[in-house]
């Protein structure tokens, strides 16, 4: 439940990763949100080279898609913990 492996994913990792989608799928909601925040700020700064900006845009869009999916789960009832 606690994703220690994904806890250290940085924006740099995300931008340079070949399998960025796999990386994003392994993120918790909070980590994804944090990366998204950094990413949007970087893109908006206009300081990124065009190819990096476009890569950032694509990855950002994918993060948003994943985070939405995490929020969109069906309504869960309270489950009884099996004893």
């Amino acid at each position, binding site marked *: 439940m606690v994703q220690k492996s994904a806890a250290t994913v940085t924006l740099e990792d995300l931008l340079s990763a070949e399998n960025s989608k796999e990386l994003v799928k392994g993120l918790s909601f*909070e980590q994804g949100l944090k990366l998204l925040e950094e990413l949007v700020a970087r*893109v908006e700064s206009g300081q990124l080279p065009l190819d990096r900006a476009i890569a950032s845009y694509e990855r950002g869009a994918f993060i*948003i898609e994943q985070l939405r999916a995490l929020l969109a789960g069906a*309504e869960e009832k309270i489950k009884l913990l099996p004893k």
Partner: protein
Amino acid sequence: MKSEEAAFLSISELVTLLNSTLERAHPRLNFEGEISKIKHHQSGHIYFDLKDGTGCVAAVIWRSGVPRIKFALKEGLAVQCRGRPNVWVGSGKLQMVVESITLAGAGLLHKKFLELKAKLEAEGLFAPERKRTLPFFPKAIGLVTSSQGAAIRDIDVKIRERMPSQLVYLADSRVQGAGAAEEIAQSIKMLSDSGLVDVIVVARGGGSLEDLWAFNEETVVRAIFASKVPVVSGVGHEEDYTLADFVADRRAPTPTAAAEMVVPKRSELLLYLSESERRLRDYERWLMPLTQKVDELAGHLESLTKLRIEDARNRLLSAQARLNSIQPGKVLETLRGKLEVLGQKLYGFGSRNIGERAARLDFIGQRGARAYVEYLNGRRHLVDRVVSRMEALDPRGVLKRGYAVVEGQAGVISSSSQIAVGEILQLRFAKGGAGAEVKTIKG
């Protein structure tokens, strides 16, 4: 004692005197007993009797003091009170005005609470530095409470309102009475060990100190301390503090507040995502610095190219002008002029006197002179050839060799078809001319 007649008091004076004497003598008394014959009066005051095995006294709690009572007054409850005696003029009966009332044994419980708190605090169980932060958005929440209680309803309502998709595992536990503490502790351990949840909420609705007592038991406190995931306590009301609250990573004043603490609001997250998406899609804004740079460079390039074209055109124009200024006839003339000068120099040189030549030759030296003469001869020969070739082109040269030019009415005649019998033709020789009449024409 001086006047027996003046010593009679009215009844109301009597009762008032006795009342004030009593009140002055005992402004505050602590007493305990069992409640009986309790009456909640319409006015809001509560009347009851307090008794023990042999004694009995009437008691009242004025309406203003009722909100401070933390438990339900019931027939037969053993209570400890603080108050003062009062004799009411209207009836002359004695009653105790109760200012505060607690369940008997509560004092003992409180003492136990403080002792355990001090002990666990000394062990470092409540240390602020070991408080863990809660996950921002838990994948699953472990809930320790009774499936029959009010807390589970409040928590469920709040969670569904904030995050309908939130997964919650309930470890159903009795939360009061004998064995409750052990069940709560066991549930916390099970959830912690299950690996299913990343935060645990321990909750119970409001109640008396006794009702909440399980959350002050050492076994519960230690189970919370040992949990592998953060624990939030939401026990009782705002003003209730239990040891579970002290050891928990976060203390929520109520079960509802605990739910708010562990679950983010989905609507807010979705809003944030939409906002992020909008910002990310705002190409125009984040591309602006780049497009500006491109525009700038394009401008530079354009002006540079214009300069180049302008330059090329200017060079072309000047070349054209220079080309136009060169006239073939003039060139020939210039060449001829140069040739003449050269010729004059050569012939002039030949006619100069010998002394001058010798002096010159001496000056240059024997070998140099020979080479010089040879060179001059070569040049002279070259000039002679050019002159003779030019002479060959001169029509007069041809005439000198005996040819004549014949001119008729049609100009210079080169064919017999250009003349007629009897026509007078003009003959031109190298020197002079003559007229001639055509007698016959041949083929």
